[in-house]
């Protein structure tokens, strides 16, 4: 599979001179499988340029896996051009709710006055599904989900294809009120999603000095992401969901801090940036 980052900012799109190197679009990662199937992780503002890049591309179906419905993971959906192709077969997956269907919850945003077009009026054929906790096969890959600690119903995703694994946990606070290092792996939120993954995209919103003022907000500090990745024995961790107030220079300082805390070699800890591609295949993992 080949993953491409279209948005890695957290909370709010943050364009501007201070964010050009890592980008200001919110969460969206395109994953192309060997079978040709397309998986899209989250529908933040990054899904708009992805949709534009798909102009002229034909596809039988595509799958959008939403980790949760906070706006930074949903806001781009109405601007995803394939939704306006009448013949498009689009499957949207997201966390279950005991109260409202996924479609009804998404329609809260995709309806006036928040959005001019109603979800029901979108031309594409859209099918909604609860996140696949028991796993679902899509082309050459299996996608599985598990609920993780964040604010509100949220899941992480694990994509496995030909012995390679990509884990995606963009919004995650794995050690709320407890010391992560002291926890057995089975008691750590998200561990089963990340365990042994070749590549982990993980929330890294706060510096360690910022986290004490954001406990319970649902995001990780650098110490958390490093500790979580180490416990999960991942091959590579990609710092994701950058705080909207962090400039490019500040992000690079956070990377330095992460590498100082980490037992992994330097190039296996890196910052997500728009346009970053990660290839996972029989030959290994390559980042460009």
């Amino acid at each position, binding site marked *: 599979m080949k993953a491409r980052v279209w948005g890695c900012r957290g909370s709010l799109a943050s364009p501007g001179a201070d964010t050009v190197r890592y980008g200001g679009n919110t969460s969206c990662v395109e994953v192309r499988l060997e079978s040709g199937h397309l998986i899209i992780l989250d529908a933040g503002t990054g899904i708009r340029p992805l949709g534009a890049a798909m102009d002229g591309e034909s596809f039988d179906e595509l799958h959008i896996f939403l980790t949760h419905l906070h706006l930074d993971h949903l806001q781009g959906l109405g601007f995803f051009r394939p939704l306006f192709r009448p013949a498009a077969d689009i499957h949207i997956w997201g966390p279950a709710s005991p109260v409202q269907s996924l479609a009804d919850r998404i329609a809260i945003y995709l309806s006036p006055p928040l959005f001019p077009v109603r979800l029901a009026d979108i031309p594409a054929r859209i099918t909604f599904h609860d996140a696949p906790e028991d796993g679902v096969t899509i082309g050459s890959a299996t996608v599985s989900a598990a609920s993780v600690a964040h604010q509100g119903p949220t899941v992480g995703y694990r994509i496995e294809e030909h012995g390679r694994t990509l884990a995606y946990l963009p919004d995650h606070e794995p050690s709320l*009120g407890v010391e992560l290092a002291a926890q057995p792996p*089975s008691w750590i939120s998200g561990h089963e999603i990340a365990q042994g993954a070749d590549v982990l995209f993980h929330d890294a919103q706060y510096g360690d000095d910022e986290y004490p003022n954001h406990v319970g907000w649902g995001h990780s500090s650098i110490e958390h992401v490093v500790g979580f990745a180490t416990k999960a024995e991942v091959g590579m961790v990609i710092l994701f969901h950058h705080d909207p107030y962090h400039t490019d220079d500040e992000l690079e300082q956070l990377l330095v801090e992460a590498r100082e805390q980490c037992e992994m070699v330097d190039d296996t800890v890196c910052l997500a940036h728009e346009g970053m591609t990660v290839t996972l295949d029989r030959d290994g993992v390559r980042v460009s």
Partner: protein
Amino acid sequence: MVSPGGAKSLPLILARELASNLSTAMFLLDAAGTLVFFNDSAEILIGRAFAELGEISAAEFGEVLALAEADGTPLRRRDTPAGIAFLERRPAHRVLLATGYDGTRRLVEATAYPLLGANDEMHGVVSVFWPGAAIVAGTGAGS
């Protein structure tokens, strides 16, 4: 004692995090009925630390605690607050006698409620305990 199980579900993880930060005695059962955690305050009732015991099967736990009504009448597991919460998927409260690993029998009040997920699936049971009116030493209630 049973072998530590696999990955715990998020509701159970969050319940454990809450329990770890409370002085209220709290037990957690998982969806199989295994006692997977109790906090430091619950050690007073159990008579041993969780770190020492680890996870305990429902059968062993029930046998050790020898739960009884306040007058000493033995209580079936299904009639305990945790049993009701687990089997009937509803909250329950009761005053009861429980025996710890140290052999001490204690009068406690227990409230249990099920952890039901977004699809109404069972994740486990939370049991909260308070000391009853008296703590009775020895092996028999009131002895």
